[in-house]
């Protein structure tokens, strides 16, 4: 799958996207795995109330949502458009 990062999450992790394979089946599982990878992920996901997630370009509110079969997962802070 492809993982995308936007805004300060992108700056913190240092890439705008990466290809990634995981056996994790939920968003929270994926985040746990990333956080254990490197300090930059730990820093980015430090405060999860500041992180929003989209699976295949659809916003999801529940961190226990399944990511099985997902092509694209995006992490970003609350939106500030308009």
């Amino acid at each position: 799958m492809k993982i995308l990062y936007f805004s300060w999450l992108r700056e913190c992790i240092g890439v705008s996207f990466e290809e990634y394979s995981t056996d994790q089946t939920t968003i929270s599982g994926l985040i746990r795995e990333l956080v254990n990878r490197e300090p930059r992920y730990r820093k980015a996901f430090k405060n999860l109330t500041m992180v929003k997630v989209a699976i295949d370009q659809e916003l999801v509110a529940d961190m226990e949502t399944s990511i099985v079969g997902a092509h694209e997962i995006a992490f970003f802070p609350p939106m500030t458009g308009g």
Partner: protein
Amino acid sequence: MGLDSINLHISIRNQNFDINQEIKQLSSGNLNIGGIVSFLGIVRDLSKNNNLKFMEIEHYPGMTETALMKICNEAKTRWEIQAISVIHRIGKLYPGDNIVLLLVGSVHRTQAFEASEFVMDFLKSRAPFWKKETTLTEATWIEENPLDEQKLLRW
């Protein structure tokens, strides 16, 4: 149904827009549009020391368009409106620059006003845009206004 019966126009881009031209395009060929409500968002200097140099707007290509389409279609099912146009700029913008233009055309004034507020409220908190302000001294990502999320509850 959905997109067939409504004139829907969504554009995410760097370049500025011309309001006259956008209005002309929205109402062209539809003499039933008796009223057009618009919202124009402009870069303003909200930094503490009033020293904003520029703003950068980032977005999530693909998801942005999908999210805006969804918002506009929802507005279309709730209000009697004939046409919607949303233009949102991305990239580097300076104080006074246009950011966003929403146009909603309707036979009925009140319908157009309500639909416009609805679209702006959801655009603000549900369309994947992020703003970063660079002042003379620092660069910071704009934080969400908690009121914006609250505003969605009224719809």
